[in-house]
């Protein structure tokens, strides 16, 4: 049994602590907002210039001036604030955001991450991903354990162009969770999806990691 998208998001949500300011990437990371633990209050940042993202709006609340970084319509909260892009990334680059959850194409055993381009394919750009991995205090990657062709995504050295070097703190896949306590340490397998064994994980991983 492997974890589905919602289970992966729920696992990432367990890393949230009361009072955290958090930036969630597009895709599975967005789902993390649906699994915030009881009693934990977090404030979501949108890098296009907002703190305090609310849920998707009701049809009659839709406002073209109120979107998230994925360009989706959202709503505001009573505690929200708006600011410009330079101030938004001052917040990110300056280390004021406690945690970000991002997708990735590859993560290397030294914490490098690649999630913005595939050579030969149309390059769309890195958006805010490079700023987030360089600036946020804790970086959690949520990704499938293997690519669609079955090849491992947690690997010795990234083969794709990098988004950041030595930045990832935790990897949550559909099979397992890897964590490291600091950026000088190797990743350690700390959790398995129900019914998945460490051997199965090791067989699908080319990165070195501790068990």
């Amino acid at each position, binding site marked *: 049994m492997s974890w589905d998208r919602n289970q992966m998001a729920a696992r990432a949500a367990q890393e949230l602590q009361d009072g955290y300011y958090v930036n969630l990437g597009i895709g599975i990371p967005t789902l993390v907002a649906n699994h915030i633990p009881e009693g934990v209050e977090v404030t979501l940042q949108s890098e296009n210039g907002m703190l305090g993202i609310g849920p998707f709006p009701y049809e009659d609340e839709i406002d073209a001036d109120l979107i998230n970084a994925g360009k*989706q319509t959202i709503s505001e909260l009573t505690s929200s604030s708006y600011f410009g892009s330079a101030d938004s990334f001052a917040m990110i*680059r300056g280390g004021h955001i406690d945690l970000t959850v991002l997708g990735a194409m590859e993560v290397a055993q030294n914490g490098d991450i690649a999630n913005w381009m595939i050579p030969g394919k149309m390059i769309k750009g890195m958006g805010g991903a490079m700023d987030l991995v360089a600036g946020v205090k804790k970086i959690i990657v949520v990704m499938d354990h293997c690519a669609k062709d079955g090849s491992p995504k947690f690997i010795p050295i990234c083969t794709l162009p990098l988004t950041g070097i030595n930045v990832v703190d935790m990897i949550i896949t559909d099979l397992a969770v890897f964590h490291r306590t600091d950026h000088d340490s190797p990743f350690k397998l700390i959790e398995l999806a129900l019914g998945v064994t460490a051997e199965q994980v090791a067989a699908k991983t080319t990165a070195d990691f501790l068990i």
Partner: protein
Amino acid sequence: MKKIYPDAATALDGLLFDGMHLCVGGFGLCGIPERLIDALQEAGVKNLTIASNNAGIDNEGLGKLLRSRQVKKMISSYVGENKEFERQFLSGELEVEFCPQGTLAERCRAGGAGIPGFYTKTGVGTQVAEGKEVKSFDGEDYILERGIFADLCLIKGWKADKAGNLVFRKTARNFNAPMATAGKICVAEVEEIIEVGELDPDAIHLPSIYVKRLIDGSPYDKKIEFRMTREREDAA
């Protein structure tokens, strides 16, 4: 000193030339200076270098200038959702400098603040760092990024008073805030021009010094890229 112009074309009069550099505000289609972009297209000015977070979508925003082949180079962080862009980029007709979103915002803020260069951790060890100076501060590596200072900045605000003090609305502030400062002259379009004194001096986002020319661009029919909603739960 009159800052208010009757329309976008007159507001840009005398400011345009082939090969010029522009900063254009907006994020996706949110808060883009539509009227001014239309006027740029009509003016037919060519070989533009444009710093803008995105390049519009097909036939919306800067997508219009791409279609009319007026753009030589884009400096952007994300350019998806645009077929004509993709075609010109892949064929080599359009030059693109990919810049991390926060670095782009800071480069514009720096250019506007008289800072020709600053160091950032963003992009260290990646393609973005290629050809850039690396310097170590307190044992960590950073790369040198350059300020951006354009010939002309085009922005969209919500309301401005007749002196040029301007406020933005919600997430339409985005790149309009730093980009307004990052050029020799800034032309702004807003949804409403109000009397001096109607804005709270403590709540002005862009002081009048930055807004040299101003138009009321209303009415606006704002475009939404991804319309997401939730359902109202039935009353119990």
